[in-house]
């Protein structure tokens, strides 16, 4: 078999059914073989390689298996770099197979040659150049194992032309062990007993959880833990949807634009239990004042995260599901009624000062938050919500409501990649075609990867695009308004006629300006399963609140432009 055919067999052996990609000169032998495997491997031809990697990320995030990307060398490869960095910081399993020039041409500045191994080394879990067909099966098995095990992340296989065209025998390979790579951290009984004693002794324990809950499938374990200890919890942006929005122990989203209650609880708890999260600065504000009054237990699968940002009293290396399950057995059954109601007043303040003005402003232009709220009403919590980056993202996170199904919120958290939304939504819909996928995207981010409308058209991928248009780069504009004296440097945006763009792609389109039309338009949007765009013209200079200004403490929160708590 050729290396290209061994690649096909190896991908099938890994259970790969979908590949997002774009052909080109140095990956042509692989694409030629793909032609013979098109009944078993669905290839989705994107319009730009960045679309392929974000689609693979969306696919991976909702399905919890690695997404697969196939691109050519040189520009094809460099176009996926943004998505690789995004997948690295958001722990998303993806495998990128990039073409590369022939072995003899390596290092000669050949046509479309780029040093892709060196380019991607700092932003991947593992990068490997396959130069011989004999190495294909081994490298593919190892790539998928590394991408999906431990703390997941991106892997790059740089596949030279000789590797693709050379002949070798196909020997199926498996990989579930690498001696230098430890993922099976088993916390000792003694450590867990100590943790349980700390939890039992705490009067006001508070759980902050993140993406690790979704990645390890620890949703039920988390819930059991919270219920047994009667412990309230807050979620990071990427942890959203792993606990139902209306769960009595769920206090909301943490951080800069999060809910007041979990931020206040962070500063008032006596024990902070962090699970599968990494204390991002958007969560902590300035670390100088973050949860200083509390003891800290940090549970994570990545040794380099424990003690990286916050010094901990007890670090537990391990899988979130396993650790939480064992801790639940060890802790005492308790009621902590008073502590669970500690933030009732502050919740009422948020409702009065932030939520009501956003969602029920009375008259005037539609607020962006209202759009999310109406979609949540229509979808009843069962849609996969995908966001772009910026105000649309924060409002989608704040006002979406999740019920019953985890991994239902897909967003670019760590890297904050504008343009992530549309292709990621595409990948999510391909992964789970039976579910509704709703994308919230601003006019800025939409135009960054809008070319993927062509992919939706060609493949008939039923993504529902809610284009929240304020004719600004709203998030930057908000910072300019609040912190830079309204000096609106390069944030005003003149937009194209989106109806005509939708028409050109044969995608149904609707537009709303008046509040009264919003609910019927959203109901129409979700009436079928075809791709569609709903443009909502929203209040132009709307701001997202509450807000912990950058560099401030979690306890210094702006409720609006003039009031703080």
């Amino acid at each position: 078999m050729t290396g290209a055919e061994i690649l096909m067999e190896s991908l099938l052996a890994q259970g790969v059914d979908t590949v997002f990609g774009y052909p080109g000169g140095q990956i042509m032998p692989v694409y030629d073989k793909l032609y013979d495997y098109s009944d078993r491997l669905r290839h989705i031809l994107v319009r730009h390689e960045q679309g392929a990697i974000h689609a693979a990320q969306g696919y991976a995030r909702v399905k919890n298996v690695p997404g697969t990307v196939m691109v050519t060398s040189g520009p094809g490869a460099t176009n996926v770099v943004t998505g690789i960095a995004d997948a690295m910081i958001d722990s998303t399993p993806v495998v990128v197979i990039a073409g590369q020039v022939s072995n003899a041409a390596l290092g000669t500045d050949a046509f479309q040659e780029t040093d892709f191994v060196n380019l991607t080394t700092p932003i991947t879990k593992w990068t490997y150049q396959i130069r011989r067909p004999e190495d294909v099966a081994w490298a593919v098995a190892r790539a998928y194992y590394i991408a999906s095990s431990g703390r997941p992340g991106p892997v790059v296989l740089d596949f030279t032309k000789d590797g693709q065209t050379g002949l070798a025998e196909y020997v199926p390979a498996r990989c579930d062990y690498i001696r230098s790579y430890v993922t099976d951290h088993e916390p000792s009984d003694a450590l867990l007993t100590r943790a349980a004693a700390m939890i039992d002794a705490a009067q006001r324990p508070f759980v902050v959880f993140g993406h690790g809950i979704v990645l390890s499938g620890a949703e039920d374990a988390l819930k059991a833990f919270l219920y047994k200890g009667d412990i309230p919890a807050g979620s990071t942006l990427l942890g959203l949807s792993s606990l139902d929005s209306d769960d009595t122990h769920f206090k909301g989203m943490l951080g800069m634009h999060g809910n007041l209650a979990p931020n206040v609880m962070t500063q008032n708890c006596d024990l902070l239990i962090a699970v599968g999260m990494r204390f991002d600065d958007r969560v902590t504000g300035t670390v100088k004042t973050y949860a200083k009054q509390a003891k800290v237990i940090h549970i994570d699968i990545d040794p380099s995260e424990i003690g990286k940002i916050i010094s901990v009293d007890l670090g537990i290396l391990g899988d979130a599901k396993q650790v939480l399950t064992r801790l639940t057995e060890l802790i005492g059954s308790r009621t902590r009624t008073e502590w669970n109601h500690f933030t009732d007043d502050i919740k009422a303040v948020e409702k009065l000062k932030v939520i009501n003005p956003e969602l029920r402003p009375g008259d005037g232009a539609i607020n962006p938050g209202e759009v999310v709220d109406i979609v949540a009403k229509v979808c009843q919590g069962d849609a996969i919500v995908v966001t772009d980056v910026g105000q649309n993202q924060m409002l989608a996170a704040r006002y979406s409501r999740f019920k019953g199904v985890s991994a239902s919120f897909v967003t670019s958290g760590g890297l904050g990649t504008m343009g992530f939304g549309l292709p990621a939504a595409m990948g999510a819909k391909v992964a789970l075609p039976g579910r509704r996928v709703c994308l919230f995207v601003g006019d800025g981010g939409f135009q960054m990867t809008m070319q993927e409308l062509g992919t939706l058209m060609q493949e008939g991928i039923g993504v529902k695009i809610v284009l929240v248009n304020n004719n600004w780069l709203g998030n930057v504009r908000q910072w300019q308004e609040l912190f830079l004296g309204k000096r609106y440097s390069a944030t005003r945006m003149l937009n194209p006629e989106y109806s005509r763009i939708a028409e050109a792609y044969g995608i149904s389109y609707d537009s709303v300006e008046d509040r009264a039309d919003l609910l019927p338009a959203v109901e129409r949007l979700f009436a079928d399963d075809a791709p569609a765009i709903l443009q909502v013209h929203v209040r132009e200079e709307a701001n997202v609140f509450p807000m912990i200004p950058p560099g401030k403490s979690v306890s210094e929160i702006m409720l609006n432009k003039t009031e703080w708590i």
Partner: protein
Amino acid sequence: MGEPKEYLYVITAYTENSVGLLSSIAGIFTRRSLNIEKLLVYPSKVEGIHKFKIHTRTTPVRAREVVLQIEKKVDVIRAFAVVDDERSPREAAIVREFLKNRDKNNI
């Protein structure tokens, strides 16, 4: 409080002998603007295992962070940091023991 004190650290890493690992480890230093004062890469006392020895001037917190980042690389087996004047002769023994346990548990 003042700036935390810097020391001359010797960071050692026991690794597989794979292409690109030097660049990958060097990147950890570059990203943190840490200068490498001295670098040695050679076969270690543990059979089939290579050893990196990197001298760098930094704070204890940074040194710990760098060690964990190095150890996070798939092809790195173990990494250690010691201040120059307190070398640990036990490193090779720790690595041998680690590999023995890893392989034993994977039967």
